[in-house]
């Protein structure tokens, strides 16, 4: 068994938004706390911290996951994508463009998680019609209740990405 001597501090090597990260981390630190507190990537939000709200959603090896339900050490050797790794100020990602175009947010706290979840939802092939989008985006709660606009934005972005050969 691979077990680091000492008590609970381990070496973690992974890739976050294309950059190599090598750091010592306690076993109990979640991916969410690693991102926010250690790497200062505060775009990923902490909402419920128990897997109920989805605002901490990130991509791990391209698949969406709740970073609050993932230990950082479970990401050893993996590639993590957060909202900071999506688009750029001048060249927004099609999902970001669609969220703006459809006014798919009010307070914005859930938006980073919604965007990451939407990117995965589209890549999985689940952005086909409003009912399917609602079901496959149901892991992301929006307390401002922008759901109709979010659904429209995801469908619009899926169409744009398909047109650009991105989906």
């Amino acid at each position: 068994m691979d077990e680091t001597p000492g008590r609970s501090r381990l070496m973690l090597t992974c890739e976050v938004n294309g950059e190599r990260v090598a750091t010592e981390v306690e076993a109990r630190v979640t991916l969410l706390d690693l991102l926010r507190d250690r790497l200062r990537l505060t775009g990923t939000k902490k909402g419920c911290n128990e897997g109920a709200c989805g605002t901490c959603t990130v991509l791990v090896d391209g698949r969406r996951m709740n970073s609050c339900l993932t230990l950082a050490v479970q990401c050893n050797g993996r590639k993590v994508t957060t909202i900071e790794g999506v688009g750029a100020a001048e060249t927004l990602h099609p999902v970001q463009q669609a969220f703006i175009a459809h006014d798919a947010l009010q307070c914005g706290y859930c938006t980073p998680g919604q965007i990451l979840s939407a990117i995965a939802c589209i890549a999985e092939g689940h952005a086909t019609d409003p009912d399917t989008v609602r079901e496959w985006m149901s892991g992301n709660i929006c307390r401002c209740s922008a759901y109709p606009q979010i659904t429209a934005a995801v469908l619009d972005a899926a169409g744009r990405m398909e047109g650009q050969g991105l989906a």
Partner: protein
Amino acid sequence: MHDFSYAAARSLEDAFAADGAASMPIAGGTELLNWLRLGIAAPERVIDLAGVAGLNAIAIDADGLSIGALATLGEVGEHPQVRAHAAALAQACLAAASPQIRNRATLGGNLLQKTRCAYFRAEAPLPWGCNKRLAGSGCAAIEGFNDRHAIFGWTEQCVAVQPSDPLVALAALEAEVTIAGAAGVRSLPVAELHLTQAEAAAEGLDPARAETRLAPGEVITGYRAPLRPGARSAYVKVRERASYEYALVSAAAVIELDAGVISRAAIALGSVAQKPWRLAEAEARLVGLAPTRDSVLPVLRGGFGEARPLSQNRYKIAMAAGAAARAIVEAAA
């Protein structure tokens, strides 16, 4: 979260060191991390099973369907062969949790999740009694909010239900669970993996805390389900919102039809007991009936003679019978 150490298992034998107390196994972690936050578990060490090779395969052969314990709910739910040959299981997996949780949660861990009883899922130290959390402290639910609790198999010590969706489908499919430990490999029917509180008491175990037949150091390695020719199945989950919510009740039906009538039926109910609840007598009386709601509902309602509803959950009897009827109708469709 309290401090603990971390070890990555490289073989199944490494996993046997996880005794479920000082050393907890972790796979997806979607359930364990919340136990650690609430103080439901306080291990000195977690043992990560993710690196154990060969435990995530999904395959169909002459003996039926086999699924490794590390297959995720998303992988099982979207697997074309599972959807084609064990529809109830695919539907149950995709009705569970959210897409992002299903990308982490494994079929092995899912069956070992604990009840959603709000008195149980509170941060330590608890301000009320819960015999599951602290032996002898009482059960706040039995005289409190118990609308989500058991109608079968409970005792005065505990009225919790087991909330897993895939468990209900696997029970109706008459799957076996494969368990490995230092003493060797064994299997048992999935429907017998969990204990009701009354069953635990009858075996001299703690009725509130003994929930499964797993021994310390044993791990679930996978499941095997026979696939009977002509069998068709469906899973129905009734909940307070359309998605991303635990069941009030659920039902899985696996039926075979001959000349338009039911020739064999297996029905399992979820969230009515601390184990999937089979309606054995009703199943026998379904044979010969047309798979329509009007035809099967009276027989299914007759299967609740042993039910002992609590002060707030009598509704579960009618709701579970109705869910089972819908599962039969959807399986036949």
